[in-house]
C-alpha cells in the first residue's frame, strides 16, 4: 500500500468515468477516512468526446490536486490509452479494456475485457465503469470494497442497486494477470 495514489480514469463521454471518480473519491474520503480530491476534464460534447476523471487519494491532505504520472490508469478507449499510457509511474498499473483497446503487453498492464464482461456477465453495458471499480479495488486496495459499495449505492438511480452490486462484485472476483 502506498501513502498516495494518483489515479486516472479515462475513456469517452458516456462511459460513466466521472461517476466512477465520484464514487471512488467518496469511498476513500467519507468511508475510508483518507484524503481525496477528484478533478475532471471533458470536451463540450455530452456523449462521445474524450473524458477523464482524476483522483489523488492520500493519507495526507492534498495540495496540488492533479495527478502527474499515475499509479493507476484505467483506459476504456483507444484514444485514452494512447494519450495516457506513457504517463504512468514505473510501479504503476494500467487497467485496459481489452474488448475495446489495442494495447502493448507489459509488466503492470492488466488487460481485462471490461465492457464485454459487463454485457455478458452483468447484462448491462453501462455497468462497465462499476466493474472497473471492482477491479481497481481488488487489484490495488486503494479503496476498500465495503466503502466502494456504499458510495456506489448512494450515487446510482433507485432500482438499479442489485445490478450495480453485481457489477462491482464481478470486478472484485475476476482473476487477472499482467504482461499477457
Amino acid at each position, binding site marked *: 500500500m502506498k501513502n498516495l495514489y494518483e489515479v486516472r480514469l479515462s475513456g469517452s463521454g458516456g462511459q460513466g468515468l466521472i461517476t466512477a471518480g465520484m464514487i471512488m473519491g467518496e469511498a476513500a474520503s467519507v468511508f475510508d477516512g483518507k484524503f481525496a480530491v477528484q478533478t475532471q476534464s471533458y470536451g463540450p460534447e455530452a456523449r462521445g468526446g474524450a473524458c477523464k476523471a482524476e483522483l489523488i487519494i492520500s493519507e495526507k491532505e492534498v495540495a496540488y*490536486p492533479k495527478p502527474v504520472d499515475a499509479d493507476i490508469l484505467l483506459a476504456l478507449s483507444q484514444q485514452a490509452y494512447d494519450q495516457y499510457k506513457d504517463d504512468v509511474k514505473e510501479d504503476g498499473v494500467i487497467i485496459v479494456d481489452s474488448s475495446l483497446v489495442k494495447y502493448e503487453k507489459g509488466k503492470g498492464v492488466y488487460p481485462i475485457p471490461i465492457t464485454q464482461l459487463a454485457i455478458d456477465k452483468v447484462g448491462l453495458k453501462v455497468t462497465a465503469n462499476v466493474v472497473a471499480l471492482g477491479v481497481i479495488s481488488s487489484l490495488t486496495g486503494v479503496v476498500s470494497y465495503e466503502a466502494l459499495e456504499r458510495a456506489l449505492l448512494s450515487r446510482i438511480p433507485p432500482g438499479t442497486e442489485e445490478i450495480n452490486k453485481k457489477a462491482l462484485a464481478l470486478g472484485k472476483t475476476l482473476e487477472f494477470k499482467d504482461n499477457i
Partner: protein
Amino acid sequence: MLFYKLYKDADGRKVGFVQGNEACVEAALLAGMRFFAGYPITPSSEIAAVSAEKLPMLGGRFIQMEDEISSMGAIIGGSMTGKKTMTATSGPGFSLKQENLGYAIINEVPCVIVNVQRGGPSTGLPTQIAQADVMQARWGTHGDHPIIAISPASVSQVVTSTIRAFNLAEKYRTPVILLMDETLGHMREKIVLPREDEIELIDRKQTEDTPEEFKPFATKHGDVPLFAPYGKGYRYNITGLIHDEAGFPTTKTDEVVSLLDRLHSKINDNLDDIVEVCEFQTEDADTLLVSFGSATRSCISAMEKGRAEGKKIGVLQLLTVWPFAEKQIVKLTEKIKNVFVVEMNMGQIIGEVSRCSHRDAVVTGINKYNGIYITPQEILEKVKESR
C-alpha cells in the same frame, strides 16, 4: 437533481464528497441565503441548479432570470426585503453584472456574487481554469468604489469563505464577491459542514428608529447605516444617483464627498477584520510565493518539494483578495526579499504586491494562462531560474 449526498458524522455534522460549486450552495444555505437569482453559464451552472433544488426546502426562493443583468438586479431587489441573496456567474456574465454591482455598492445592499472564473477575454475558455478576473473584481464597475473579494483554494475553504462572504456583506452592507475558478468549482473533496451551533452568523443591523425618524443612509451609528426592510413601514427611496442621508438625489458637493468617503471608510477602516491571509512556513523562508485561489495549492506543493531539496520557501495565500493585504505584504517583505507572485493570468495581482513590497524586495511573476492548472514543477523551475 442533486449529484451528491450528505451524510452525518458522529458529531452530527454533515459530511460529503462534493464539488466546489455544490459546497458553495450548502454553505450559502447555512449562512442564511434564502433567495438566489441566476442565469446559466459554464462553469458556475451547478450553483444555480443546486440552489433551485434546495432553496424551496427551506422556504427560500429561486428564480432563473432572462440574463445576467437581471439576475444581479433581482438579488438587489430581493435583499431590500431583508433576505440574504446570492447570484453566481463566470467571466462574461460577471462583465454584464458590473453596472448593477455598482448600484449595490452605492446603495449598500448586502449580497454575494460568485464568479467561477474561466479563461478570457470574451467567451474565452469556458471549461478551463483562469484567475484573470481579479482586477475586474476590483475595478469592474465604474466610479470610485471599495469592494470585498474572497478567493478560496479548496472545497473546504469554499464552505468557510461562502459563510464569511455573507457575514461580511451583512456586516458592512456591501456586495461581496466570491472569486472561485473552474477547477475549484468542479473539483470534489470531502467537506464537513459546521453544525448550526458552531457558526457565527451576522445579520445586517436593523434600525430601531421610528419610520418618521429613519434615514436609510444615516451616519449617526457609524459608517454602516442601519437597515429597514421594505414592507415594514419604512417607506424610503434608494437610487443609483449620489444621494443624501434620506436617500434622495443630491449634487451638493459636501454630500457627494461625504457619501463617497463613507463608502470607502467603512471598508478601509476595518481591514483587520476583513483581510484574511494564510501563511505557510513563512517563519524561516527566504523565498515567498504569493498566490490566491487554486494556484495556492500548486504553491504549497512547490514549497514542499522545494523544502525537500533544502530550499526555504514559504507561501502567502491572499484569502481576501480585496481589499488588498497591504499590511501583510509590507511585513513579510521586510524579511523575505525574494518574492514570486503566482497567478493563472498574465500578471494582475503582482502590481499590488510590487506596490506594497519592501523597496529591496525583488518581485517576479510566475504566470500561466493557457487554460491548464499551473503545476508545482513549473513554479519550482521559475524559482530556480531566477536565482
